[in-house]
């Protein structure tokens, strides 16, 4: 039996598949949906832009004036130059985590937004990918604005800094995958305390505000394997012009983490959303 003539609905099975179980065009419909939902809530975008810039003003410029310079390896940099890439990376993390934990949880558990979506040609993989793309798009906008602010304050030391934008997106990807996967285990809003418990120490101690060599050996090793440290190291190297093939290790780490998270999330969501 075939469809009658005139039923012109798209049925791409393998074309346009970014990941198995994901169709790019369908995933983008979730982005479209979120854009419609946020059309009225554009104020949240302002806070997203403002937050890292406020940190930059208070800690980078303000505290920086007291601290003076930081010595990292064989190099001495003004504190605000040191801290700005850390703030950029942290902002990328925070945005992605917020979108894929809190925001996703509301839609997934309370509004049951995806029950309707999954009755259409979209699949669970498309939904998860769409939410990640949305989080990344938003993160990219914030990171772009922050980079412009850094440029304005004279905190960019190299043309490599252009790559800090995709790097921020990569950090967002890693944390979006992680956040989505973690959210599938959450039962209520109380569980978000655990998210904060993971995020806040990472924000404070991932060489964001002071260099890694302040830690004793074991602790330094521990910090170095956290995803935010990987992101901070990548962004900082690019902004200060310290680029080299070694940075690809950070890139591989972040890609692997995001993909693993997404993979787990899709598998879990299939069971949870389609009982």
């Amino acid at each position: 039996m075939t469809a009658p003539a005139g039923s012109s609905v798209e049925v791409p099975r393998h074309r346009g598949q970014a990941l198995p179980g994901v169709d790019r065009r369908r995933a983008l419909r979730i982005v479209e949906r979120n854009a419609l939902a946020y059309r009225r809530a554009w104020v949240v975008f302002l806070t997203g832009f403002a937050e890292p810039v406020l940190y930059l003003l208070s800690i980078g410029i303000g505290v920086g004036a007291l601290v003076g310079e930081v010595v990292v390896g064989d190099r001495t940099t003004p504190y605000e130059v040191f801290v700005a890439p850390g703030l950029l990376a942290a902002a990328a993390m925070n945005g992605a985590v917020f979108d894929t934990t809190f925001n996703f949880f509301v839609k997934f558990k309370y509004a049951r937004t995806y029950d309707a979506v999954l009755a259409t040609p979209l699949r669970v993989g498309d939904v998860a990918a769409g939410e990640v793309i949305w989080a990344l798009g938003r993160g990219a906008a914030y990171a772009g604005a922050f980079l412009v602010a850094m440029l304005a304050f004279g905190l960019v030391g190299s043309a490599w800094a252009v790559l800090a934008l995709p790097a921020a997106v990569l950090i967002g990807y890693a944390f979006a995958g992680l956040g989505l996967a973690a959210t599938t285990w959450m039962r209520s809003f109380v569980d978000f305390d655990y998210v904060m418990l993971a995020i806040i120490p990472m924000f404070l101690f991932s060489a964001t505000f002071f260099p890694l060599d302040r830690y004793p050996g074991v602790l330094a090793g521990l910090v170095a394997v956290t995803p935010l440290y990987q992101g901070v190291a990548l962004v900082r190297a690019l902004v200060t012009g310290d680029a080299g093939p070694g940075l690809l290790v950070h890139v591989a780490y972040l890609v692997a983490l995001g993909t693993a998270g997404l993979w787990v999330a899709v598998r879990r969501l299939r069971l949870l959303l389609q009982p």
Partner: protein
Amino acid sequence: MQGGSPLIHARSLTKRFGDFVAVDGIDFEVHRGETFGFLGPNGAGKSSTMRMIGCVSPISAGTLRILGMDPVTDGPAIRSRLGVVPQEDTLDTELTVWDNLVIYGRYFGLTRAEIRERATELLAFARLEERARDRVDPLSGGMKRRLTIARALINRPELLLLDEPTTGLDPQARHLLWERLYRLKREGVTQVITTHYMDEAEQLCDRLVIMDRARIVAEGSPRQLIERHATRDVVELRFTTHDEQDAAAEALSATAGGAGAEVEPLPDRILLYTGDGDGTVAAVTGNGVQPSSVLVRRSTLEDVFLRLTGRTLEDE
């Protein structure tokens, strides 16, 4: 009307939730152009079956083919040709009425121009034009239902799955929906519907099955089911006191209703199932039974339903 292979083909279709069996190996076929009904008490497994047909719930065992395809491998292709009204409204509460229609059309890959035209018409059908720019949350229950139904039509589905579509609708809205469903039927749209309103099932369904405790207990057209599982007439006898009713029930049972009728005592009345209502009434009153009121009526699907699925509430 039933040429070609069936639009839905289910064999030993089973749904389990852990150890619990919600749908226990049912067989049915739905043909193109047909309106097919699922009736059954709460918890019988109707919605579980509908969700499997809608390709949002994987089957646990058996075979299921929809539009000639397998839900496991062709879910998106099948769903692109379905319209689904789930039992619980699943509107997007973060969007307006209009945007709900728009984004739903986008999920199906329709262009904005197509959507604008269809959404305008569907909004009129749902009588929600004035609410187009409102959020969905403050709409009344019936309005939400109407929007859910309108939304299910945005992709011009070939197969429409309606899980208790008229629950919560006022009579006007109900009749508007029926009209629309007739029109869709004339256009060749196949419909699968569940309902707790027997009059609705009698009106809409060409064929239906009655489910009880995860199984299909009867199948046929409304007329066939009444012929097979009920008598032509039903006599309802009411009494002023319980004692009178009990005495009458005893007397009637002893004489098989006086005229070969089947006797069913209920808390508030006695039912006599009979091929000849007037004859039975004559025989009964001739027997000295003195009811306070007597009603002779034709059997309905409701009689069939209650007889087949039992009158007690067994909600498990």
